[in-house]
């Protein structure tokens, strides 16, 4: 009976996704329709879909697990993410939208190529290598989460769970393109927010209220209520807190998030959407951390803190809501995988096949190739997920920072520093990415486990600035940048 109820909820949700795929399919016949939904998305869709894409299963399983394991020390994640989302919408979105509309750009490499008057396609090739390698790791991690979620909620078995998750995502992503991705992400974002509002309320109530919950946590481990956690105000504590804050840096310039700004109908949608996005991420993060802390009170001694959400949903709610919580975990997974697959597809088809190689195929044919590449990337992620079943969130955070460090420093410099040159941007992109990978592989363990986003960002900015100062900027590019900022107007 319980399993039947859960399956009924799940089937209803999957039908909604398939319906969105069919509904959006009319606009996926050309590249602009397939990759940026014809640039016609409203504010509420870009707000929720950007957050749903940015957060993934890490929010529901990873951040609740952090609340469980380290208590209020996880508040530093909230600081970084809320600030990152707010600054992205306030400072980055409008000039980026203005630039990409002027150039009719539909990918971030499109934007960089035009911004720096590049004729060699170096940004396109570098982006393709970085995006494809990171998307593979990221997608595999999400599919691993899908397999575990299906297996733990329904007992499908891990392999079948991975196949089911990928099958659904591939269907609506290839049929409906970015429009289906954005609208399904909106639905998924709303579900995630509802879950993360309801779960901590039920959890705190079951724990006997805030006072009872905090006193239980204090008795279990006083470090759970300290902002600097078990480390205190030393180098290790500061490294840990700053690493958590740095998770939010990626919202400022990761291509899978910038695509939402490109796809907005106009700049008014960005102004209107920012507040929704900030409120949404506050609900996500505060809800996840408090749910984890309530879970620690209710279920002390879990072997894996990242299972606290399924534990709470099963124990505190009837079967129908357990089905909803399974749907929400899947929503978080799918809303990230669909966006990554579209991003990888655009890197291959738009940036390499159409622009770098100069293919003269029709838009319709390119769109079909884009769909085929989407399927291919999904299958590659599937192969990795079936072969390497472990450490979901290690891969997620690594891929999240790899993409962010390659693009964000360069995008920020290109939008706000007119002295930025093409050579500087290329150096920054490669430097940020390489240092991120090297930090994880060689240095991380020796330096208090400092999160790779910090050295990666530092290297990306340093390389961009130093090489730009050694080379001459393009006078037309400087005039263009000044005109963009005049056109966009002051921030406050």
């Amino acid at each position, binding site marked *: 009976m319980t399993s039947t109820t859960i399956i009924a909820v799940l089937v209803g949700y999957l039908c909604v996704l398939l319906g969105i795929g069919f509904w959006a399919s009319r606009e996926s016949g050309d590249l602009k329709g397939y990759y940026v939904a014809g640039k016609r998305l409203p504010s509420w869709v870009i707000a929720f879909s950007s957050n749903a894409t940015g957060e993934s299963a890490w929010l529901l399983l990873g951040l609740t697990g952090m609340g469980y394991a380290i208590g209020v020390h996880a508040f530093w994640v909230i600081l970084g993410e809320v600030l990152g989302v707010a600054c992205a919408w306030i400072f980055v979105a409008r000039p980026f939208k203005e630039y990409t509309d002027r150039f009719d750009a539909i990918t971030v490499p499109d934007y960089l190529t035009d911004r720096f008057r*590049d004729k060699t396609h170096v940004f396109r090739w570098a982006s393709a290598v970085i995006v494809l390698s990171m998307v593979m790791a990221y997608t595999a991690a999400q599919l691993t989460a899908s397999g575990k979620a299906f297996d733990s909620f329904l007992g499908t078995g891990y392999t079948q769970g991975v196949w089911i998750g990928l099958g659904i995502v591939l269907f609506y992503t290839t049929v409906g393109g970015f429009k289906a991705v954005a609208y399904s992400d909106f639905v998924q974002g709303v579900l995630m927010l509802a879950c993360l509002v309801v779960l901590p309320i039920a959890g705190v109530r079951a724990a006997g209220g805030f006072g009872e919950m905090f*006193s239980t946590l204090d008795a279990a481990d006083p470090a759970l209520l300290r902002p600097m956690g078990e480390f205190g105000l030393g180098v290790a504590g500061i490294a840990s807190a700053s690493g958590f804050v740095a998770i939010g840096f990626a919202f400022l310039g990761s291509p899978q998030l910038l695509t939402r700004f490109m796809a907005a109908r106009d700049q008014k949608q960005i102004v209107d959407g920012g507040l929704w996005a900030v*409120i949404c991420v506050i609900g996500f993060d505060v809800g996840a951390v408090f749910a984890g802390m309530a879970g620690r009170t209710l279920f002390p001694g879990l072997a894996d803190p990242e299972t606290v959400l399924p534990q709470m949903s099963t124990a505190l709610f009837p079967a129908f809501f357990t089905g909803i919580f399974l749907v929400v975990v899947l929503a978080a997974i799918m809303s990230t995988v669909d966006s990554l697959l579209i991003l990888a597809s655009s890197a291959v088809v738009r940036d390499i096949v159409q622009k770098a190689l100069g293919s003269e195929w029709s838009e319709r044919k390119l769109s079909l190739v884009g769909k085929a590449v989407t399927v291919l990337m999904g299958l590659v992620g599937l192969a990795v997920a079936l072969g390497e079943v472990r450490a979901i969130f290690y891969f997620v955070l690594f891929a999240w920072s790899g993409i962010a460090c390659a693009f964000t420093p360069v995008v920020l410099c290109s939008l706000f520093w007119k002295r930025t040159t093409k050579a500087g941007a290329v150096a920054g992109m490669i430097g940020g990415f390489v240092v991120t990978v090297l930090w994880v592989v060689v240095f991380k363990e020796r330096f208090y486990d400092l999160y790779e986003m910090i050295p990666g960002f530092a290297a990306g900015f340093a390389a961009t600035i130093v090489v730009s100062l050694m080379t001459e900027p393009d006078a037309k590019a400087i005039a263009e940048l000044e005109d963009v900022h005049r056109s966009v107007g002051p921030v406050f």
Partner: protein
Amino acid sequence: MSILGMPLDAWILLLVAVGLGLGLEVAFVMARKRGRSESGGDAGSGRRDVGGAT
């Protein structure tokens, strides 16, 4: 000192974590609304061909 059982410094961190980004966003929205009402429309959404490489 604690409020509802959680230490004051933890509350302050939570307040800053939520309030800093939210405050910036609210200030931005208010400034844009003021700017819109002063200029009678939204600025900066025009498309122009500037000879980019795409």
